[in-house]
């Protein structure tokens, strides 16, 4: 038992939110809260208290990096892994994203079958970094 229970997904695309909820909740057994944008995610942090956040990079309004920076300002988010999801897969693009302070980057399209296990790696990494 890893101890990872609550996962928040911040993703503006409704169809991707559905598949994230399906794969993480139904397949992975996590308690999942999907939010449709950065501000919606920020509004739910206190009530949901995620142990890991999956965060889309390219979103209208508040972008992924902007959302990450806002999340890191919250005391509740200290030590909580925040993992970007992006279609940008070039090494320099991934490096740029990590410099925002993300725990990791998951490249889209993600594999729905392996995603529940993949996020455990970031969960363990996040705990080890505390």
């Amino acid at each position, binding site marked *: 038992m890893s101890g990872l229970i609550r996962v928040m997904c911040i993703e503006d695309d409704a169809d991707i939110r*559905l598949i994230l909820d399906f794969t993480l909740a*139904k397949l992975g057994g996590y308690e999942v809260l999907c939010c449709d944008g950065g501000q919606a995610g920020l509004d739910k942090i206190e009530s949901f208290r995620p142990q890991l956040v999956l965060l889309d990079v390219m979103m*209208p309004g508040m972008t992924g990096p902007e959302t990450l920076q806002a999340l890191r300002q919250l005391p509740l988010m200290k030590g909580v892994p925040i993992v970007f999801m992006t*279609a940008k897969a070039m090494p320099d693009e991934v490096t740029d994203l990590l410099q925002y302070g993300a725990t990791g980057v998951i490249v889209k*399209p993600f594999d729905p*079958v392996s995603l529940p296990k993949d996020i455990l790696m970031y969960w363990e990494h996040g705990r080890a970094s505390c």
Partner: protein
Amino acid sequence: MPVADFEQFPPALQQEFLRLRRNFEAGLPARWQEIHSASSHEKKVFALHRLAGAASSYGCNQIGALAREAEKWLKRADDGRLGPVMDRLAAAMNESVASSMEVSSASAETSQSSNKGEPVCVSNDTERNSAQGVIDGN
């Protein structure tokens, strides 16, 4: 994820995944409209980007790849390469829409007419296209 890989899901979840996928396919005409009615270059790029990500997540890999290619040419303002890719994207999306309509008709066990066995029409009538779930490649 190749289409066949959904079989890696436990059997109990395979049907649910397929239901989600059909739901996604049924929404493709709206995504096409979003791309074509985008009021700016940036919004059009964003709509293609979203389509690429969503399609690939559901195993609609051809649509995902074409949307990503279209995004690339649109960003580079290469209309010469963009046009044919958009035509192929429309065809791929039409095929998925038709497929999802066939499955829905079969599941509902209705005798109402559908596109089953008929080619998907291409028309300039935007509103009718939206209602019937067809995508105009123009």
